[in-house]
């Protein structure tokens, strides 16, 4: 049927206090259908009202509503005021608490700073020591290098004295011709030379060949 409100839970005999799920519809009959004959000129009787009682009740109801209204407004205003003041008080307390915590944080940072700076100093000292050692090593190496260079220069200078000039050219030539060199020696792994089974120069570190004695000028040179 049209316009029947579906009252489902009315037909369910449940002991529980069920929630009613219904859809309220305005009228059962369509608007195009006229009012029924019975209802056409029906005038309802007004509810009986005692005028004195009515006046009293009106007065009391008005007083009650006024009081209730004023109380409600009072409570709302109080709640709003308390909410703002509470919120402000809370904010102030939070700000204060944060400042206290920041000062504690600063104190903690100071403690950390001490041993951090100690550690950093130690690390810096170690690093500097290491650098100094390296520097000393480098200087030592340079000194040794210089010594080596000086040695080389000295050797060259010494050998430079034996250089042949045009002045002593003739003498050097005669000396070279007169010089006899004997390579007929044995050598072991250590560089010791042996001749005829005997050690010739046990501590000799010279690389030059064994030089025979220069013969006298009247003797004939050795034939190779």
């Amino acid at each position, binding site marked *: 049927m049209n316009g029947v409100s579906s009252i489902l839970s009315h037909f369910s005999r449940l002991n529980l206090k069920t929630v*009613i799920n219904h859809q309220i519809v305005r009228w059962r009959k369509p608007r195009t259908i006229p009012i029924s004959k019975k209802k056409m000129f029906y005038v309802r009787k007004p509810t009986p009202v005692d005028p004195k009682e009515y006046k009293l009740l009106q007065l009391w109801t008005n007083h009650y509503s006024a009081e209730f209204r004023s109380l409600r407004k009072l409570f709302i205003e109080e709640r709003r005021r308390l909410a703002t003041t509470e919120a402000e008080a809370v904010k102030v307390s939070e700000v204060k608490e944060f400042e206290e915590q920041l000062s504690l944080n600063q104190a903690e940072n100071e403690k950390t700073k001490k041993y951090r700076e100690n550690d950093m100093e130690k690390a810096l000292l170690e690093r500097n020591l290491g650098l100094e050692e390296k520097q000393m090593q480098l200087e030592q190496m340079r000194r040794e290098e210089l010594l080596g260079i000086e040695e080389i220069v000295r050797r060259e200078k010494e050998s430079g004295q034996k250089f042949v000039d045009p002045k002593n050219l003739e003498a050097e030539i005669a000396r070279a011709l007169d010089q006899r060199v004997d390579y007929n020696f044995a050598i072991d792994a250590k560089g010791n030379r042996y001749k005829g089974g005997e050690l010739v120069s046990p501590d000799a570190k010279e690389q030059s060949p064994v030089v025979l004695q220069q013969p006298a000028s009247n003797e004939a040179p050795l034939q190779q």
Partner: protein
Amino acid sequence: MPFMKGPAPVRRTLKYLEAGNIIFRDSIRIMAVNYNIKKPCSEGTRKFVYWQIPQIQHQNPHVQIVLFKNITPTPFISFYFMKPDHQSYDRAIYDCYNKEKDEIEQHVRKVFGKSDVTLQRESLARMEKANPANFGNRCDRNCICEVPTQVSCTGFKLLPQFMRGKYKWLKKEELAEVRAKVPDEKAFEEYWQRPY
């Protein structure tokens, strides 16, 4: 279900993220962490960054978190926050040299995070605003009659006559007649037993 990809993917799970307990104060806007990757003094900070930063960012989505690696010799965390006048900002630093991850977390929570009291107060305020017990226009329930164990909708299940104003004030004789037959308590019991 396959394994999640990446190193320590538990950091990306919702359960882990919601377990974060550092919720910053409202004034804090930026958190900048300076740390080193290889130095032993920065190990605690590294672990803090690895494990805690996802949780912190999840719980504080409006705070910018910036990480600086290998820029400074020692690790520290700096916080930039607004002053009470809301016009200027200030900066606070926490030195994390040789600190453990848990130590850093506790300190950050204590100094820069909201306390348990504050969090409780805020949750109560939120609950007050959205009280599930409320009924009315913009609530879950429109009328108290929709709540189980409450009196049903009087539009469909009328209250016993002794509780209705119509009979109390305007139809006293009828009420008296009804009361003579059925006492009030029985009428009330019968009210609860009938469905409509």
